[in-house]
């Protein structure tokens, strides 16, 4: 399958993400320049982490005005797989492809550290290779990761099973301490109603090789690849 990694001028996890899908998972992958109008036949679009426009104004706010966004939006509305990581998640929120908004971390500091996240939904193309309740150790690196949504919409998220990852203790329990950035309901990642657009604050591309301290993030890329192999490939008749 083919991944397309969108490059905004201030993206800085673009190369890391491309490296992982290409070199670690041996998939086809290309950068997609934000000023172009070409998705280069990608099967899965990734908005990588970084500071798309310096994160001036608000994290991810200015990226949504880039030319390529039009194509990505259409792609997403037609069911194409879109993964937003960190700043990518913030962009998806600003774009309205996912509900809610990000506030500053509760301690008002940038946080870079490994956290534990629990998989709460494996019924998605991004987590189907994982298990419910499985705890992953994955790094976060963000200033604005304190997820917010109003109460009614939050109920909706629960009802529709849209919450995919939650910050947890190593044993999977939720606690105030493990909810490092103060996100509502410890939400670390969520998916849209149609189940094809996922946003997550932790960086799976930083946890895909054991030498970097954890390879728990592999399950996300493996899921996407498996999903594509099984579901999307035309079955021989």
């Amino acid at each position, binding site marked *: 399958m083919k991944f397309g990694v969108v490059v905004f001028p201030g993206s800085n996890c673009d190369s890391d993400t491309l490296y992982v899908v290409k070199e670690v998972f041996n998939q086809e992958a290309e950068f997609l320049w934000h000023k172009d109008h070409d998705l280069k036949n990608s099967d899965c679009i990734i908005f990588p982490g970084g500071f798309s426009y310096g994160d001036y*104004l*608000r994290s991810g*706010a200015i990226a949504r*005005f880039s030319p390529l966004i039009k194509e990505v939006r259409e792609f997403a509305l037609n069911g194409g797989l879109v993964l937003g990581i960190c700043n990518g998640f913030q962009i998806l929120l*600003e774009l309205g492809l996912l509900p*809610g*908004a990000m*506030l*500053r971390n*509760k301690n*008002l500091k940038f946080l870079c550290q490994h956290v534990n996240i629990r998989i709460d939904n494996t019924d998605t193309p991004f987590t189907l290779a994982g298990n419910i309740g499985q705890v992953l150790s994955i790094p976060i690196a963000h200033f604005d990761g304190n997820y*917010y*949504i*109003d109460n009614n919409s939050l109920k909706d998220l629960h009802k529709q099973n849209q919450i995919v990852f939650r910050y947890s203790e190593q044993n999977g329990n939720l606690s105030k301490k493990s909810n490092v950035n103060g996100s509502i309901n410890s939400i670390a990642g969520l998916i849209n109603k149609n189940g094809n657009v996922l946003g997550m604050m932790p960086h799976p591309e930083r946890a895909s090789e054991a030498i970097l301290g954890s390879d728990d993030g592999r399950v996300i890329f493996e899921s996407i690849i498996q999903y594509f192999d099984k579901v999307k490939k035309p079955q021989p008749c």
Partner: protein
Amino acid sequence: MKVRVLVSFKDSILDPQGKTVEHSLHTLGYDFVDEVRQGKVFELELKGISREKAEKIIPEIADKVLANPIIEKFSFEIMD
């Protein structure tokens, strides 16, 4: 023409930055400070546009770009 757009969190949203400022003012002995909320201000210099037009288009800009309506509200003033 100078326009000032004020963007701040909706009242229902916690404002930890404001709280931090509030706390440090209390530590410094400014007890009469009851509450602090922190927001952003944008000062726009416009040219070649009428006042009426500006009054219509500024809310559009604020809504679309300057504020995130999920968490923020805005107000604006035309200064001159």
